């Protein structure tokens, strides 16, 4: 199917983009990687009259370590994160998650900021950013502001970004001493949207977990933390009983929607399995 007709302009600066968004409101869309936007326009699911291409705003791309945080620009392509030595060192969770995002050709175009701003609950980056406790950096007419990941994802395809703001970057804490990160998801085919997925990080000492954050994808209308399960797992040294209790807590606090093929019960069963396997993986002695 072909899109409905629209006009196209390349933003020359972030301010230029903001001005166009303010002027056209809901009739305009930001075009970054376009891997989601162009697919939905091609199915005539939306009919904007103007696309504002921010692809030339190179200031919004790049991965760097600044002031003790890993800063990933919004226009950074998924593939750059997948291949980045800085990410591998400081936020391995993202390097583990990247190969699950669609396929290579999509990852060469899709952007980190695009995925975060779109906030599909089945997407990998929102759950990763939530697991790591990142900070989203937004730019509006009034300047920059920062929003914590815990406060950024508000609902189905809904974030704290206002319509007249651009997402500039995400800042992530650097991997701490003793910290381990583990991403896993279950999908019928490589690259499909996950049926259930888990982005997990913790500081591990023997069989004791601390600073544990469990962020789930495809199990709600937004990426979710399972705080009850986190609490149980951090309550003492891990044991078969503690893990069983954590699973019970998880099942009680998650209310996933069924999808076309999988019931909520199946998703909970898969989530419980992902939890067990992630805990085992996080606490496994390194070879």
């Amino acid at each position, binding site marked *: 199917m072909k899109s409905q*007709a629209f*006009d196209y302009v390349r933003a020359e600066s972030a301010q230029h983009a903001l001005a166009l968004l303010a002027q056209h409101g809901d009739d305009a869309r930001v075009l970054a990687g376009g891997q989601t936007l162009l697919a939905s326009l*091609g199915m005539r699911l939306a009919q904007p009259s103007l696309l504002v291409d921010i692809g030339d705003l190179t200031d919004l791309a790049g991965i760097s370590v600044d002031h003790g945080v890993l800063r990933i620009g919004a226009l950074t392509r998924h*593939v750059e994160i997948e291949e980045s030595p800085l990410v591998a060192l400081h936020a391995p969770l993202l390097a583990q998650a990247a190969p699950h995002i669609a*396929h*290579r050709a999509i990852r060469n175009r899709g952007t980190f900021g695009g995925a975060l701003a779109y906030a599909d609950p089945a997407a990998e980056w929102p759950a990763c950013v939530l697991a790591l406790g990142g900070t989203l950096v937004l730019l509006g007419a009034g300047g920059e502001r920062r929003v914590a990941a815990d406060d950024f994802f508000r609902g189905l395809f809904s974030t704290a970004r206002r319509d007249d703001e651009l997402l500039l970057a995400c800042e992530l804490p650097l991997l701490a001493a003793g910290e381990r990160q583990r991403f896993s998801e279950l999908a019928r085919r490589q*690259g499909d949207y996950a049926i259930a997925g888990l982005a997990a990080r913790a500081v591990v000492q023997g069989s004791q977990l601390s600073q544990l954050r469990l962020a789930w994808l495809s199990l709600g209308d937004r990426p979710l933390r399972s705080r009850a399960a986190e609490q149980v797992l951090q309550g003492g040294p891990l044991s078969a009983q503690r893990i069983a209790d954590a699973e019970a807590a998880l099942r009680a606090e998650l209310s996933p929607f069924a999808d076309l093929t999988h019931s909520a019960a199946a998703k909970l069963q898969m989530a419980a399995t992902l939890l067990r396997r992630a805990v085992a993986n996080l606490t496994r002695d390194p070879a």
Partner: protein
Amino acid sequence: MNTPLDEPTTRVRIEVNGQPVLRDVACRKHLSDFLRDDCGLKGSHLGCEHGVCGACTVRLDGRIVRGCLVLAAQASGHRVETVESATPGLRLKALQDAFVEYNALQCGYCTPGMLMAALDLVERRPDADREQVRMWISGNYCRCTGYHAIVDAVCAVLDLQRVGAFAAEPLPQVNP
């Protein structure tokens, strides 16, 4: 090819298979339609137009992309390569030969996109094993072959590369 006058258009200048192409196109036209309609290059095929099947896979600035998920307007000022390159490099030619030798194509509709994906692997993952080849081409749908022969063909070309068959065209130092 004939765009009615009442829709927004833009002027694009795109380097296609080494040649500059200058056209006025509808803003909504995607790169695959641009290649097919405006450049007469019918090798890139449309299978879904929502970025999933991979039939439209081409190279943009040296990286594989879905032609249906890139606007021609976005590609202006950039460089596109398709399987119809008039002077295919040694690796692409070897892949084409291997596909014929192993019958890694039947109807041929997925083949241009599959070749672009396979070429990307041969250049960037020279040490790929059979399993990794399978994963790499998992973004390209083929209904005819069941994939086994395609994996055989790509593995055969990786073997050739390992014994230096393409030494005359050393790979540029790219990110892995």
